[in-house]
């Protein structure tokens, strides 16, 4: 445990990379998730089935395989990405597939009467979406989105496999230099756990608020 004093400052930049990967995945993945949710609930058959296919492929494939497809696969198509870029692209794709289902559930959960009432009041479709549907849908999707963000935060550790210098890579390197794998990996585990558990607490708080505000 005394080695933790030495390890901790070395791991902090790794934690920073891990957090950046998480934010990157959410930044690009969430808007794409909204698009996929709208597409898969639309009445345009072709777009709907294409959307469903993308979502099912994204959710059915192991995250690691998606990462390898982007990093080792795209060069075959003439597109070579840097390791961090590849990780961000892969995590964003996975994020969009998973969160599209959350957004879809949120859109469906807004009672039909709300839409009918908006139309009866003569609101334009855009205003109906912006002022009536989205505010209610957002309140429903926030707790599960935080839950997904925690899974994504943990999932960034896959980027170790393409040698992105994130938290797990730092811990593994420290372990291989000092041969104190157990100690180094336990500290990394603790650092993952502290962030995950704080976010879980936050998710619980937003969920209780979402329920009481109805």
């Amino acid at each position: 445990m005394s080695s933790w004093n030495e390890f901790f400052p070395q791991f902090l930049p790794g934690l920073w990379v891990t957090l950046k990967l998480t934010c990157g995945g959410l930044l690009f993945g969430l808007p794409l998730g909204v698009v996929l949710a709208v597409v898969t609930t639309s009445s345009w058959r072709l777009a709907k089935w294409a959307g469903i296919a993308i979502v099912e492929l994204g959710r059915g494939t192991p995250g690691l395989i998606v990462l390898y497809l982007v990093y080792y696969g795209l060069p075959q198509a003439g597109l070579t990405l840097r390791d961090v870029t590849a990780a961000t692209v892969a995590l964003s794709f996975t994020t969009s597939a998973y969160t599209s289902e959350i957004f879809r559930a949120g859109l469906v959960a807004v009672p039909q009467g709300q839409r009918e009432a908006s139309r009866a009041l003569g609101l334009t479709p855009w205003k109906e979406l912006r002022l009536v549907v989205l505010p209610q849908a957002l309140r429903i999707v926030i707790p599960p989105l935080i839950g997904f963000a925690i899974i994504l935060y943990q999932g960034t550790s896959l980027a170790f496999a393409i040698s992105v210098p994130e938290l797990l890579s730092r811990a593994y390197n420290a372990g291989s230099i000092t041969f104190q794998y157990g100690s180094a990996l336990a500290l990394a585990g603790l650092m993952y756990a502290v962030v995950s558990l704080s976010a879980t607490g936050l998710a619980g708080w937003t969920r209780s608020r979402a329920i009481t505000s109805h």
Partner: protein
Amino acid sequence: MLHYLSVLANGIGQTVAITVTSFVVGAVLGLPLALMRYAGPLPVRVIGGAVVETVRAIPPIVWLFIVFYGIGSGSVQLSTFAAAVIGLGIIAAAYLSEIYRAGLKAVAQGQWEAAQALGLPRLAIYRKVIFPQMLGVVIPPSATYAIGLLKDSAIASIIGATDITFYATQETQATLQGLSIFGLAALLYIALSIPIAATSRITDRKLTERLAR
């Protein structure tokens, strides 16, 4: 393409073995963990809750590394398969215990009271009354978890287990045809998840029929 498929097929056995064994480990260890949180005295419940939350707060790869490099490189030598099964099994136990607990809670309180009124001993109440009713609630989410476990098992290739992903990585390094090879691997994982989903649907239907009778 057919050549790649035959290469990747070498890893199917390992992928299935890791998934099934870790699921069994998790299914067995998850039960006492669920009972700890469901029926234990307060301190036991708190310990059970802390174990589940801690296990779930740490990424699966980190668990695998802790088992393989942290524990398995010392006095005990672990094979890649054993390390993968222990690591994924611990995680499965935590997740499945939560599914069991939800199942236990779903059995109506009146069933307990009726069984006690009939004078059934505690073990018999669990075995004859609670568990059979729990099964229907537990199977669908367990199958979903099993599919998740199948996908998570891909990370075992990082510590060197010779599964589908391992062969895909190796073949890509030899041929540089990553798009085709990993695309095929993705389809293979999806194909492997279909029987799990189908089994779940069939057992679920059979159980509902039996309970309805």
